[in-house]
């Protein structure tokens, strides 16, 4: 894995309070798991940025090494890896995702 890709990912995860690496875009997710992740973020009413890994094979592979997590989507809050769509759903249902945003000082609905 090139250090350049890892450096780009590190910059990206710190560039937005809430960042989702996904397949496709919020309007046109290309995978059910990414679609579910977007739906959760929309329900939370939080401002978020996304990166479409399908547009960048380096990032698509590199993000899995960055987080040591084999699947996409991947959610980052304030630069910290939170989990994939299953973990997002469990946390959302338990109210833990809203709590995490509160703890990190990220505004949401």
């Amino acid at each position, binding site marked *: 894995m090139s250090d350049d890709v890892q450096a780009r990912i590190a910059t990206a995860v710190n560039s937005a309070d809430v960042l989702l690496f996904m397949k496709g875009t919020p309007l046109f997710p290309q995978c059910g798991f990414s679609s579910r992740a977007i739906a959760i973020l929309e329900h939370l009413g939080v401002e978020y940025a996304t990166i479409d890994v399908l547009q960048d094979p380096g990032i698509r592979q590199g993000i899995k090494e960055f987080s040591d997590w*084999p699947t996409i989507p991947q959610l980052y809050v304030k630069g910290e890896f939170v989990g994939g769509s299953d*973990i997002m759903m469990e946390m959302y249902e338990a109210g833990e995702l809203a709590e995490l945003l509160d703890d990190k000082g990220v505004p949401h609905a």
Partner: protein
Amino acid sequence: MPMAASEIEAMIKAALPDAQVEITDLAGDGDHYSARVVSESFRGLTRINQQRLVYDALGGRMGGVLHALQLSTAIPD
């Protein structure tokens, strides 16, 4: 090349012998599964690390051969 549900279950149980594993073939196509894994080994771990144990059990197939596995983990009551 999809994986059979029995193969997924066997790999998880090989790594986590006490695990109760319930696998559902979501689309009936042998390619989209959901798995619920209950094991004492998850105790004290974050959700991320609980899932990592299952991913490790699947030996790198997750995100590769096994694209669509919806996973939930829990500790026995």
